[in-house]
Structure formats: C-alpha cells, structure tokens
C-alpha cells in the first residue's frame, strides 16, 4: 500500500467515534473535591457503614499517605492531583428501590442507550446484572431468583449492610490495603461495586454481570468487587464499563478480589471500554486496577478473559495465587490501543501449591501512535513441586507509529517447574489485506476479519453475548487502521 494511502487510512481511524460518550443529566449528591480523613469519614457515614469499615478505610488512607505512585510501568502519565478529584458522587434518587418504577427514568434511559436494560423482562434471561453509576449501585436484577439457590449477588454497599460478617472475613485478604498505591487509595475511598457469594456445591444458574458507568464530572470511580466461591461451586462473572467523553482525564482505580475454594471454578470476563480520549490524546480514563484471585482450595480453577479497548492509560495485571494443590488458572487477554492510548497490562501467576498449572495468552493490538506493553510474572515458590506454566504473548502492529513491548519476568524457585514462554510480533501484512481485497473484501472489512481472527483464541473464552460485543468492539476501535 502506498505511503499516502496508508497515512490517509490511519488518519481515518481517529474519526471513528466513541459510541458511549454521552452524559446523563441527573442530579448528583457529591462531597466536593479533595481527600482527607474527614472526607473518608464522610463517605463512610453517607453509606452508614459499621465501625470496622471506617477503620479499614482510615488504615488504608494512612498507609496510602506514605506511598508514592509507581513509576516502573512503561507509561507516560502526567502528574495526578489527588486533591482535585471528587471521591464520592452518587446519582440522587430514592433511598431504597422496591421495583423498576423507582429507578430514575433518566438513569433507565442511560442504560437502555448502552444496551443494558434494567427491566428484568427485557433482559437476556440468563444474565443477572448489577449496575453501578459513579459511586453507587443503581440496581441489581434477578436478586430473588438467585437467593433461592443461596447465591448472594448484590452491590458492595448492600453486602456491607446485610452480610457484614462475610465482608469482614474476606475483604482485603487477597489484595491487602498496603498492596500498592492504587489499592491503598481504593481501600480508603471505594464507594461501591459488587459482591458475589456462591455457597458450597452450588452452580450459579445464570451469568452474573456488573456494568460500570462513570457519569459525573471530575469524579473518580473506585469500585470494589469481591467474589467468594465455596467448595464445589461455580460462577461465571462478567464486567463491562463505559464513560462519557470529557476533556479532562478521570481516574478509575478498582479492586477485584476472588476467593476460590476446593474444586470450585470461577470465570471472570471483562470488556473494558472506558472513554479512551480523543484523537489528540485529550481526556480519557486513567485505569489503574488491581485484580487478584486466590485458588485457595485443591483443584480450584480461576479463568480471566478480558478484552480491553478503552481508557487513555491502562495499568492492570489480573493475577492468580495458586495455593491449593492441583489448582489452575488461565489468563486470556486482548488489549487494543489506538491513537494516543497507553496500556501496560499482563498477568501474574504465583505457584505455591504442588502440581499447579497456569496459562497466559496475551494478544496486544496497537494502532495509531499508541503504546501497548505486556508485563507478566510467573513465580514458582521454593516448595512448589510440579508447577507448569505456558505463556504466549503476541503483538500485532497496525501502521508504523505505534509500539509494542514485552516484559516477561520469571522467578523459578523449584527445579521441577516447567515454564514455557513464546512471544511474537507481527504486522498486519499488506499481502493479507490485498489477498482479501482480491476476493472482493474492502480494506476496512479485511482488518476486521484479520484482527478478529488474531484475537479469536481469547474471544472464544468469553460467554456468548460478551463475545459478540467484544468482536464488534474490536472492529469499531480499529475502524480504518491499516499497516
């Protein structure tokens, strides 16, 4: 392809619009900008939290004050003024929702527009949804149906009120408050999120899903998800996210903790589509997320599947601690960066139990002037016998102004471990595009085909509805880019 033509098409990429960039005009209850112990007390009081929660928050905050933002990632991030952020903003609506009719019509309209109807009748029959807007959960569907099986699926705030014992027992056990800068910040100010509890021997009868939406201006979103799977249980959990287009950057720092006990299995899928900023790199979400699960019991299984297309900056390493003997974990990721987006993402697999297995499949796709890095750690502890890991990190480049990097770390403390790592970097070939063209397929469609083919291994791991959404998202976020 001729140089000018290539540049022209690459430019067109930047015209493909972010489809979820609208703002909902609703009244917010916020607490003003800034962070202090008083602010944390105020958040805790607004949420009417028990004493242990406030203590947890204050401890985290005091620790956070001693920490510095990490600088080891391959990211260029302007300094963030943490006093300039609103840490709590909640859509104003009636205190307690008894039925759909109680949800603010504006909010309902918002989620309808996003393709997430809150009305149970209209929902895909097999997915229960918790929707979180800014700092609080708006609505959780199918709560009743799930309760009959003993499954708890509710907003984190509700769980604090209704199941404080479970929260107190598990919160902070996988991601301790001092874990990292953003985890400490989240632990201090987190406002809502989802809680899932699957009792012993229960196969959750439907997919559970949380939809996160940032709406308010100058607001950070700090949500927390906690999933506990007792022995012999199973759940598939999905998470999706979008935000309005705004010129300033907004901070998102989340924590996900997952506990998987004996013979239990968790599938955790993410479609991350936060606003990525405009084509000049103005605005967009800073996405700093700590996601970690522990396969605590024997033969426990945890699978991560993620399609990441949004955010101006992504800093995220879903990890698994393989503690139970025979436990296993898989990580499947597609991360797309375009324009000025930056991603430093990957996974950590910590092998502690004997005969533990892990797989990492990471596919990076870079276009525009973006930067896309894979960073992964495979650690096998000294007393861990028979650990196995396979990692594959592929990078696909579109155009010649983007970059892809791979930073694999291996810490192998036991000789019996078998660890394999493969990495490839390729460009979408002009040959491939021409071949498609010659069969009557336009360049746009050819890229869609090739990219989806490239990412298929990961998309196939996602539940059906998400896989379809993920495929569309890949096509949209790369509209027009050619290498």
């Amino acid at each position, binding site marked *: *392809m*001729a140089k000018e*033509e290539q540049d022209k098409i690459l430019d067109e990429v930047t015209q493909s619009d972010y489809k979820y960039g609208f703002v909902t005009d609703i009244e917010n209850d916020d607490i003003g900008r800034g962070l202090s112990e008083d602010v944390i007390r105020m958040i805790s009081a607004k949420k009417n939290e028990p004493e242990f929660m406030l203590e947890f928050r204050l401890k985290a905050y005091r620790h956070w004050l001693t920490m510095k933002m990490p600088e080891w990632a391959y990211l260029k991030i302007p300094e963030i003024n943490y006093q300039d952020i609103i840490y709590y903003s909640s859509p104003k609506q009636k205190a307690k929702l008894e039925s759909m009719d109680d949800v603010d019509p504006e909010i309902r309209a918002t989620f309808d527009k996003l393709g997430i109807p809150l009305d149970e009748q209209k929902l895909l029959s097999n997915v229960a949804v918790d929707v979180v807007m800014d700092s609080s959960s708006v609505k959780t569907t199918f709560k009743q149906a799930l309760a009959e099986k003993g499954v708890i699926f509710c907003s984190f705030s509700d769980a604090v009120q209704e199941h404080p014992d479970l929260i107190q027992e598990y919160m902070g056990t996988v991601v301790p408050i001092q874990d990292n800068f953003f985890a400490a910040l989240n632990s201090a100010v987190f406002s809502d999120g989802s809680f899932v509890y699957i009792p012993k021997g229960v196969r959750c009868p439907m997919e559970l899903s949380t939809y996160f939406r940032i709406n308010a201006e100058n607001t950070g979103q700090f949500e927390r998800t906690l999933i506990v799977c007792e022995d012999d249980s199973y759940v598939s959990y999905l998470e999706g996210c979008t935000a309005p287009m705004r010129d300033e950057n907004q901070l998102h720092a989340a924590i996900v903790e997952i506990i998987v006990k004996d013979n239990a299995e968790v599938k955790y899928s993410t479609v991350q589509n936060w606003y990525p900023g405009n084509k000049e790199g103005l605005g967009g979400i800073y996405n700093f997320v700590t996601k970690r699960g522990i396969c605590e019991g024997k033969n426990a299984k945890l699978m991560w599947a993620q399609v990441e297309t949004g955010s101006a900056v992504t800093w995220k390493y879903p990890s698994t601690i393989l503690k139970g003997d025979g436990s296993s974990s898989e990580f499947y990721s597609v991360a797309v960066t375009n324009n000025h987006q930056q991603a430093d993402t990957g996974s950590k697999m910590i092998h502690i139990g004997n005969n533990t297995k892990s797989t990492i499949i990471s596919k990076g796709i870079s276009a525009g002037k973006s930067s896309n890095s894979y960073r992964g750690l495979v650690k096998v502890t000294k007393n861990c016998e028979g650990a196995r890991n396979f990692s594959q990190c592929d990078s696909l480049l579109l155009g010649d102004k983007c970059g892809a990097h791979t930073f694999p770390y291996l810490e192998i403390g036991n000789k019996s471990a078998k660890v394999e790592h493969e990495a490839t970097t390729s460009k979408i*070939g002009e*040959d*491939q595009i*021409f*071949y*498609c*063209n*010659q*069969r*009557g*397929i*336009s*360049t746009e*469609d050819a890229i869609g*085909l*090739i990219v*989806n*083919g*490239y*990412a*298929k*291994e990961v998309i196939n791991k996602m539940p059906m509805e998400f896989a379809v959404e993920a495929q569309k998202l890949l096509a949209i976020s790369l509209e027009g880019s050619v290498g």
Partner: protein
Amino acid sequence: MLSIKNLHVSIDGKEILKGINLEIKPGEVHAIMGPNGAGKSTLASVLAGRDLYEVTEGEIIFQGKNLLDMAPEDRAKEGIFLGFQYPIEIPGVSTVNFMKTAVNEHRKHKGLDPLTASDFLRLMRDKKALVEIDSKLTNRSVNEGFSGGEKKKNEIFQMAMLEPKLAVLDETDSGLDIDALRIVANGVNKLKTAENSTIVITHYQRLLDYIIPDVVHVLFDGRIVKTAGKELALELEEKGYDWIKEENGK
C-alpha cells in the same frame, strides 16, 4: 472481455512491462509463458490492482470499463479473480467466514441479498465436490499451515465459489505434484464456460497438457514477443527459451 493496450509498468522506477498488447474474448483460454523475470507475475498483479506497481502508460479495458480506475476489491467484484502464486495465510480467520464475507460482497455488488447460512453451506458443499477439495482444509483458517498443493487447491476452490468472468492463474502449477496438478486442472476445466475467460501464467508446458489453451503468448523482457496456437507451448518445451532470447537479441 479484456483489452490491454501499450501497457507500461514500473516498480521503484524500474520498467518491468514495456508495452503489452493483449485481447481476450469471452470463452477463451490464453496461456502466457516466458522465462523467469519476464514480467508474467507483474502483469497478473497489475490486473488485480496491486499498488506496488506504477502504470506509466497504456490502458486496460475490462468489459467496457477502465480497470485502472478501480480499487482491487471492485475489480474482484466486477469479475476478476487472481489465483495467487503464493497464497497468503490468514491465521484465525476460518475459510468459511472468509468465503462467506467474499461471496456476500459479490452478491451485494450485484444487488442480491446475502446468502442464508444454510444456502451458503450448500454452495460450499457443491463447490468443494466440484474441485475435489477436502473438508478438512475448508474447516481450517485460510491457508494456515497448508502445503503448497493444498494452497493451490484452495485457490481453485475460491475461484469456484466466486465464479469470476476472468480468472488469472499465476503459476498455479508451481510446487504441485502430478495428482494435485490434475485436480487443479480439472477444477479449472469444469469451471470453464462459453462466457468466462482464463489467463494461465506458467513457466512450463506441463499444465497445458491438462488445460488446453486457445492462444499461447511468450512474454520476454516486458513484451509479448510471440503469439500462436497451442503448438507453441510444445515447441517451447522442446527447445527451451534460449532461441527466444537469441531472436530478441539478449
């Protein structure tokens, strides 16, 4: 069908084709032969619209339309098919999905609705049988991990699916054993009608035992230096290309 007049083509400033003239009528099979580096594959690529090449002079009229004004995908939809000398692998893209996209683009161009899934699969089954291609190939990603022969069979299968008006087969016989050669040639013969035309580009006469050309051209140093009936191919087989080179002073 196809009319090429005084076609001059360069790549990176170096002239490869130096004034090609060629007329092809509906239903005809033309063989283009010639030694390595004569410009045979360049001609095929220019017909398909590969933009590595710069057309500096001349014109190509296909079915009354100026081919050089059209994008590669539009030429394809107008009925030009290129059987690649080195078919491209597209990992992860299933042959079914690839062909379905292509067939429906062709249908859209003709103002037809897309085929339903079942109609498409029926079409695939019929065409697979016609060109004797194994389902285990069409169930895989496009050309991924195929042997040379499998790739060429897959080209003929795609040609069968798309039913082109003009098929340009670029060195389709290279890398084929005798069985694969027979299957590929049979496919081409079965797809032949009184309306569609074929250009067979080949280095050796072997393929022309199976696909009988109406006209044979010898391309040498960017020009067609000899045109005759099918007996020319046999003469070339016997005498090689040296006498052509001598006649043309090289």
